[in-house]
């Protein structure tokens, strides 16, 4: 199969505005699409667990990274959410990872802004004092990793 790459990574959230508070306002991603969509065509009923009337879909991207995959975030306004995020050793897609220039500084910055780290800072800090990668929880408890580019 020939593919030109990964176009997007998709996740579902309870409250899209809360998620934007993290991905847009704290991580600095840009909203490139924000629409309420019909969920009855395009095969969606086959890939949904429940019957849903509409979904709000937001596409997020880092500025200047138009060749990278988008994050596609969806929610189902006024409908009951279902499910819980998974950990790394459970079957499914557990997390995505962003490469950042300074993982240690970002870890302090995010902790300072009240973002829950998946473990205390010393767990992520090597004996040389460096942080090669760390994990945080997004507003829904979805694991998000940040790496120094080598992971």
């Amino acid at each position, binding site marked *: 199969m020939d593919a030109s790459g990964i176009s997007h990574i998709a996740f579902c959230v309870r409250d899209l505005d809360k998620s934007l508070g993290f991905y847009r306002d704290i991580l600095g991603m840009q909203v490139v699409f924000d629409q309420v969509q*019909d969920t009855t065509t395009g*095969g969606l009923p086959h890939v949904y*667990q429940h019957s849903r009337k509409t979904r709000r879909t937001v596409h997020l991207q880092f500025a200047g990274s138009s060749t990278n995959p988008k994050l596609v975030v969806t929610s189902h306004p006024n409908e009951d959410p279902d499910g819980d995020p998974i950990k790394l050793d459970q079957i499914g897609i557990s997390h995505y990872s962003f490469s950042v220039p300074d993982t240690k500084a970002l870890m302090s910055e995010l902790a300072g802004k009240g973002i829950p780290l998946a473990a205390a800072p010393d767990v992520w800090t090597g004996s040389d004092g460096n942080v090669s990668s760390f994990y945080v929880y997004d507003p829904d408890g979805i694991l998000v990793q940040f790496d120094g580019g080598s992971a």
Partner: protein
Amino acid sequence: MDYLTYKHQRNTRRQVRLAYGKGDVKPTLTMTSHPGNNPDGKPIKLDQIGISHISFTVADVKSLASELVAKGVALAGPMDGFVNAQGDVSSIFVFDPDGILVQFDSGSGG
């Protein structure tokens, strides 16, 4: 908090990293398994909280669908179930061997 980023205590993991093309291509797909340990959990659908799928952009969604079906890959629904409001098939979903949803799109997003 379980075992930090793990639900269960695991001693080893096998890790495989996949990418299209050569060199430092991002993103990579990183797959893991835990040999000798019991697996836990099951994949989710698009309307459940968490990361449901990744999508690959391909040149011809319909012919890829036929190719995958011929190779025994399970489509997530009947072919005509993926027709969109414009009457086209611009994306399909299949199940990987664990039932994880994988999408193929024509590049128009969604």
